[in-house]
């Protein structure tokens, strides 16, 4: 029996209080995926046509740094959203993503969502306002990270 993904989405704060019709549409753009350990989910620079809701596991968000190779700038864990490069042009990944553990996720067809958001601005607002919260939280965390607070002057 195929179970609907809607209850999974409803239980997550990211989708909290989203109108039923929007949730239904977004659910239609989602499917379950599973990745083994050390699997590259996407490469920096590739077209960003998806985003992920991590259900289990740990994903490294990476940048390729000359002479250092792939460098983890952040990890994304269970219950978190991975990927927002699909939101703004040129719709290419700014970072790469690789699993550090076996990972289960929901992948959303962002290309389809982008088109739909253009047609239905209510849906666009619902979705983008939630992504703004994710982006804002990541920005706060990144600023703290940049402060190097555990150094000798903490």
């Amino acid at each position: 029996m195929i179970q609907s993904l809607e209850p999974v989405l409803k239980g997550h704060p990211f989708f909290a209080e989203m109108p039923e019709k929007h949730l239904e549409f977004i659910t239609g753009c989602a499917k379950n995926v599973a990745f083994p350990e050390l699997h590259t989910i996407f490469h920096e620079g590739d077209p960003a046509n998806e985003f992920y809701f991590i259900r289990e596991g740990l994903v490294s968000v990476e940048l390729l740094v000359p002479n250092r190779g792939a460098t983890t700038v952040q990890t994304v864990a269970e219950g978190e959203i991975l990927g927002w490069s699909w939101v703004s042009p040129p719709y290419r990944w700014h970072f790469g993503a690789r699993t550090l553990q076996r990972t289960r996720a929901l992948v959303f067809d962002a290309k389809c969502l982008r088109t739909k958001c253009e047609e239905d601005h209510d849906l666009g607002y619902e979705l983008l306002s939630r992504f703004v919260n994710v982006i804002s939280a990541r920005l706060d965390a990144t600023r703290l990270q940049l402060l190097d607070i555990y150094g000798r002057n903490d």
Partner: protein
Amino acid sequence: MGAMIETEIAEHRVSEPMIPELFRIERLKRETEDTFTLELVPVEETTKISFLPGQFNMLYVFGVGEVAISISSGPAETSRLEHTTRRVGVVTKAMGMLKPGDTIGVRGPYGTHWPVTEENGRDFVVVAGGIGLAPLRPVLYHLMAQRERYRNIVLLYGARSPEEILYKRELERWRGKFDLEVQVTVDRGASGWRGNVGVVTPLIARAPFNPSNTVALVCGPEIMMRFAAMELQKRGVPAERTYLSMERNMKCAVGHCGHCQFGPTFVCKDGPVFRLDRIAPIFGKGEI
């Protein structure tokens, strides 16, 4: 309940607060590149070791000076004391040069404690950053020793890099326990590091605790504590059950000299552990 806390503090009050007692260094353990733990045993058999988690001692390196350092051993350990510190100033640098067998002066314990004795039946979330794990270590020992008295216990710890994680072996042991959730993150990953990368505060959003029945204990750089307090508030942990350990330059440790003034309080005697709602108006204010 208030009377019980007063009694417990009274039991740990120092009879001669300005006179150090002699302790011998049993071991000096290097924790990271610039942090170390001193294991101290009393020179006199009559010297008693008794403290509450979160309290601190004044350690006196003879001929150099005195410095306030939190106690990092378990409160049930009555034969030795442990203090973990970073080599940052003249005194701690000299302290790091001491050898087993050398003696050191100890005054204390001083200050307020984490509210473990008053909060049976609660979830505990312990948020530590950098060397801020040291003052929280006694509370973790206590919570685990009295495990049946508490519900979920969660430790969220952030360090600068994998090499700068304190108490590595202990953390690994704790991570193996089924009744303790331990999540460690580092600001800067390294090759071979397969754990979390990022600051500690976002871990609060996904940690397994019930906010309506949680006591939060936070210690680390002040900026980290501010963001941790915001995240805890977002999860619904009330300010009256959120506790922070503040740090200021302490000299006398008994509220006389005023060096550690923090608004209308002195960190040495009204802190270092403060309830968030009681310091909220001054917490994070640059002028204070």
